């Protein structure tokens, strides 16, 4: 494919301008573009994962840009900490912050980003994000290597998962490497997208341990507090929580609940609170900002998670990092996350969760748990972003050396891998995409496109002093 060579030519041209530039490019290994529909100002696991990972990669001397869709008036190019450049592309949002997908229309914008930023690796996040799927597709058309991170688990039974899984099969059929956040998630993704398990790596999420430090002095001495922090939606098992609260509150008069988060299931909790007259013992805090989470966590003794499905569950790590005893349902990847003595796993039923909580409450009363500080010390080094970045870097190192399938091979692979019907349809779409790319390259050749000014400043001058010392 000619487009790749041309991009390389641009790179040499631009670097010839300045000998310092050459040093800079040799110094930095990868130019990474993270693509996902989900990014700040949206808040959640995927968003913080992308942000934290990008920050760590920048610190390691890579160039990272993020492409997402425009959020309201937030469109165009924005800069975040350490010169992390974010493209808010004007793409139409269709459903719950996911863009509409036609497999073709986003090509001009994404090509612009990839060419201007001289991207070598496209890293897409989340299978819910259609922009991520689009980017994987276009990147292959443009001859770039791709990595995909899957953050969620999916079933196989209902119509929506059948369709999403087919789409995933198609976009991942020539993706170089896939990253999953837990072993369960890996099994799930391998089955959903019919993948060779050897191109799927497991790299867990991480938690910033300095954000989540214990402070036992914040705990009221005369009561036992159970903290729940999650979105109040069905998938987080809030209905179970609505059954647990009256059961336990009747048995333990000194038990209090502290619930952070917002969502449609708030009604259930409010009704329970109303019916059993628990207004002084069940506090609903509403939506919490990330910086306020620690302040709520340290007030509790026990952290409760009632999720019905979870690929990794950062919340329980945050809870344990603040020194709380964690009680959680045994679903998805949760059993892999914490060692057995830091977590009490229960079946997703009210009975089992109440039994688990009773055990923990009894132990808490007899003071037989290790101190919050010692729990924090055990958890703080389990999951760090630095470690995630190192492992992801290895994936990039592996990926850039791989060959990108030329068009003919790619079409053959689509048809052999994705079934005769969907495979043929998407082979046709891949053709269209390629022709569209040729048209775009004819209208505006890559060599006339300006190379973007590096967001870390000329020669990385704007990068933080500490990181400069490390890498220069």
């Amino acid at each position, binding site marked *: 494919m000619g487009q790749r060579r041309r991009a390389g030519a641009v790179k040499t041209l631009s670097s010839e301008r300045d000998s310092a530039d050459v040093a800079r490019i040799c110094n930095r290994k990868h130019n990474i573009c993270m693509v996902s529909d989900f990014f700040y100002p949206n808040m959640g696991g995927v968003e913080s994962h992308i942000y934290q990972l990008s920050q760590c990669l920048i610190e390691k001397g890579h160039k990272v840009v993020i492409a997402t869709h425009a959020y309201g008036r937030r469109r165009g190019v924005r800069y975040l900490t350490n010169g992390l450049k974010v493209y808010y592309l004007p793409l139409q949002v269709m459903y719950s912050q996911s863009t509409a997908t036609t497999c073709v229309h986003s090509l001009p914008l994404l090509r612009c980003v990839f060419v201007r930023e001289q991207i070598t690796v496209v890293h897409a996040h989340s299978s819910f994000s259609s922009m991520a799927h689009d980017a994987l597709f276009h990147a292959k058309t443009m001859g770039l290597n791709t990595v995909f991170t899957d953050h969620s*688990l*999916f*079933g*196989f*039974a209902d119509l929506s998962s059948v369709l999403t899984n087919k789409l995933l099969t198609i976009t991942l059929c020539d993706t170089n*490497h896939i990253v999953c956040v*837990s*072993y*369960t*998630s890996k*099994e*799930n993704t*391998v*089955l959903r997208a019919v993948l060779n*398990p*050897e*191109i*799927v*790596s*497991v*790299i*867990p999420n991480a938690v910033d341990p300095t954000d989540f430090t214990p402070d036992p002095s914040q705990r009221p001495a005369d009561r036992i507090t159970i903290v729940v922090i999650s979105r109040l939606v069905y*998938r987080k*098992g809030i*209905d*179970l929580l*609505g*059954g647990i609260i*009256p059961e336990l509150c009747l048995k333990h008069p000194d038990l209090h609940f502290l619930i952070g988060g917002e969502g449609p299931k708030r009604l*259930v909790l409010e*009704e*329970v609170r109303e*019916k059993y007259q628990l207004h002084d013992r069940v506090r609903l805090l509403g939506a919490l900002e990330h910086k306020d989470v620690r302040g709520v966590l340290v007030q509790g003794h026990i952290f409760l998670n009632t999720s*019905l*499905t979870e690929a*990794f569950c950062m919340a329980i790590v945050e809870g344990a990092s603040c020194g709380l005893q964690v009680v959680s*349902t045994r*679903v*998805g*990847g949760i*059993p*892999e*996350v*914490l*060692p057995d003595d830091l977590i009490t796993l229960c079946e*997703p*039923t*009210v*009975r089992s969760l109440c039994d688990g909580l009773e055990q923990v409450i009894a132990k808490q009363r007899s003071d037989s748990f290790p101190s919050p500080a010692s729990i924090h010390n055990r958890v703080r080094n*389990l*999951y760090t972003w630095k470690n995630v970045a190192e*492992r992801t870097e*290895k*994936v990039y*190192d*592996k990926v850039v050396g791989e060959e990108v399938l030329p068009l003919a091979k790619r079409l053959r692979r689509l048809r052999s891998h994705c079934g005769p019907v969907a495979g043929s349809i998407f082979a046709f779409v891949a053709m269209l995409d390629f022709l569209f790319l040729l048209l775009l390259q004819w209208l505006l050749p890559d060599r006339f496109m300006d190379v973007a000014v590096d967001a870390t400043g000329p020669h990385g001058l704007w990068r933080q002093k500490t990181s400069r010392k490390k890498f220069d």
Partner: protein
Amino acid sequence: MGADGAPSQSVPWRKVLWERQPFPDNYVDQRFLEELRRNEGIREYRYWAVVKEASLVGQQLSCVAIFITFWLYMEQGLLAPETLLWTSLVCGLLGYGLYQAFTSQTDSCSETRTHLADLQSAALFLSFTFGFSPVLKTLTESVSTDTVYAMSAVMLLAHLVSFPYGEPSPPGSLSLNAALFASVCLASRLPGALHTFAMLSCALLVFALWPCLLQRLRENSPLQFTGVCVGVCTGGVGGLASQSLGGAVLLSLAVVSVTFLCPLLLVWLQRHKDNIHGPWDEAEICEDLSHFLH
């Protein structure tokens, strides 16, 4: 990196993330996918049981055909509206009696609805329909006949598609409304106001009350239910045959394929079912949690 480069240490791989293990990130262990379960709790279908259930679909198809047959007869003046009204009345009373008999068989005191209430709603409906039938008669005068026919066809199709075959009593609101809309359209093309009234009463009988009786029949005497279904299907095909032979052939083909071929297909495809379950499935809340709220 590289899964084949896995070290041959004596430490076994564990499915945990909190421990740094001496394996590469893309390592695939022997135990990969060991928790995968296939076709769990799957329902085995038996052919004749499915045919029996599917006969309800054929029956409903024939009901529509019977209604259309009545309409064709009325339109050509072969059936006097008085005759249809009296027949409907007799059938309605007969059906009501049967329905009551079945009800008293199953549960004696749970239903609080009295005969008087039934009579009241019947009287109310009939008087309103009678009063409004001149209006309904002229309702679609400004619309072309082709449009009315097309609309009726679409609505009857919608009725068939949205009919709650699993639990036909009470008939679903969408299916009932579609059927009544179609009947109003068709009835407005008849020659007189009394025709319209008779047609609408007949529609009520066929689309609203008959499914309720049929459901009771299905619950109480499955054997008779099959007989009734066969009877209705024969009636539908026979009635249509007296008006249009081609239509009757098509209807009988449809009924046969729905009741005999489709179940065959279902049972045959059952063998290819491959349902996978595993730890990634979303947990289901099996308990009834409503008692905490109410």
